[in-house]
């Protein structure tokens, strides 16, 4: 078994670090959501727990622990209890394939900053896991035994499936451009002289992808599944306590995944213009790249929140027609354009 340790130990360390960062990120994204929404409405936001309300997520988490866990009588119990896990776990598993920096060299060993460095089809993995995430929503909606939950679950499922097409096609144009499903390759292709962040050459794909990602994460203006005025809270109407917290965390973890996805594909990953991480040495360069990456993700999270507190909700038929009649053809057109360009350029 000795041969396994050099692989297992760094992987475990990376898992712990990443889970720590992501879960803290989730907690503070909820705080950011409340703070930013407050600022945009000329309010102050939570400022009682800790300095500037910075311990508010801790208080929120404690509250979830002490709340009663209610199962409705009409619920189909096994699936009702299972559904929150099916939402949270896919949301967390995605971080296995998301690279969050270049690499760190310590003691003659080089550790790439990604949990699963051997995965060369990370992009597909991310798409696959996010498509599995629908089950949690679907089951929660159905097993609650409540028509609002059911409607929310149905809406959410159809929305996610519809927009997944747009996402996949937009991703494919980037993949064609770089010729790889590996996130690290895609990021490396956006570094250095003569290379641009793909938001430039792939602008159409960027637009399609970003809009579709908003729908995929059930965020406003596409939060039909939990449209309060029509569906109470959608698929998690009946949930309370820790199980509700799991849905909540899953939703925010998905937001972080989506932001990371956009950053990796279109915003140059951890690259900054005119900065070469080799200048900072093997250790600090790697750490700096991770900091830059998470900073970019944070900026995108802010955009998510910003859009949420700006736009009203789409009507359901508008949502569907936007997905199928606008984004889907646009993504297809983009794919054709990119392929033509690549053929003209003489891509292998």
């Amino acid at each position, binding site marked *: 078994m000795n041969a396994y340790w050099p692989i297992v130990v760094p992987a475990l360390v990376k898992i712990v670090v990443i889970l720590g960062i992501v879960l803290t990120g989730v907690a503070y994204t909820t705080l950011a959501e409340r703070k*930013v929404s*407050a*600022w*945009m*409405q*000329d*309010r*102050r936001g939570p400022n009682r727990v800790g300095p500037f309300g910075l311990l508010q997520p801790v208080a929120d988490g404690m509250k979830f622990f002490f709340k009663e866990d209610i199962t409705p009588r009409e619920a189909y119990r096994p699936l009702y209890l299972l559904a929150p896990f099916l939402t949270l776990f896919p949301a967390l598993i995605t971080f296995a394939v998301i690279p969050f920096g270049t690499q760190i060299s310590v003691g003659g060993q080089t550790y790439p900053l990604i949990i699963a460095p051997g995965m060369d089809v990370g992009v597909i993995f991310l798409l696959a896991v996010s498509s599995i995430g629908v089950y949690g929503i679907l089951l929660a909606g159905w097993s609650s035994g409540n028509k609002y939950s059911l409607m929310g679950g149905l809406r959410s499922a159809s929305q996610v499936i519809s927009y997944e097409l747009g996402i996949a096609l937009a991703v494919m144009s980037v993949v064609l451009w770089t010729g790889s499903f590996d996130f690290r390759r895609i990021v490396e292709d956006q570094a250095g002289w003569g290379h641009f962040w793909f938001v430039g050459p792939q602008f159409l794909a960027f637009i399609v992808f970003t809009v579709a990602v908003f729908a995929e994460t059930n965020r406003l203006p596409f939060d039909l599944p939990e449209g309060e005025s029509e569906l109470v809270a959608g698929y998690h109407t009946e949930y309370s306590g820790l199980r509700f917290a799991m849905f909540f965390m899953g939703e925010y973890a998905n937001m972080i995944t989506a932001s990371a996805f956009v950053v990796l594909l279109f915003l140059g990953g951890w690259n900054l213009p005119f900065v070469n991480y080799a200048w900072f040495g093997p250790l600090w360069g790697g750490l700096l790249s991770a900091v830059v990456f998470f900073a970019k993700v944070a900026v995108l999270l802010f955009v998510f929140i*910003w*859009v949420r*507190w*700006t*736009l009203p909700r789409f009507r359901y038929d508008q949502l569907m027609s936007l997905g199928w009649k606008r984004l889907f053809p646009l993504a297809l057109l983009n794919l054709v354009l990119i392929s033509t360009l690549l053929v003209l350029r003489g891509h292998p």
Partner: protein
Amino acid sequence: MKVTRPELSWWERTYFPAILKGMKLTFSHIFRKRVTLQYPEERWTLPPGYRGQPVLLTGLDGHEKCTSCKLCQFICPPEAIRIVAGETELAKEKFPAEFDIDMGLCIFCGYCQEVCPVEAIWLKDAYELADYDRTNLIFDKEKLLALGRKPPYLPGREKPLEEGR
């Protein structure tokens, strides 16, 4: 009613101009002055005529002014007032032996004050009435009278109305 919808250009129909305009607006609000009132530390100045906690008033003779006519009990919409009448040696002959207001029921409508012929009940400006136990919310005569003697009173009406005003 006939609604004339504006003719939108191709660029406008992509939603983007409207979205960007809205985002600019919300972003600019981040730097505006906050309107939040930090409640326990900062408070509203209450307007005159504010209807808060109903209290019983004491006359110049040191006795409660209430004559136990029960008009307030009859008019009270949520039936929060309960009066048990008693006889007294005073000139008014009747007095409330018991006078309870259930503050869990009171809706602060002020009808009791409105209807009282002797101006014995009055809504003052206290509004922090929450309690952990509902039984504590039933205020009896002694408590209501004590509240009636205690400030704070409304600005411009530093004292409750006196008899014979």
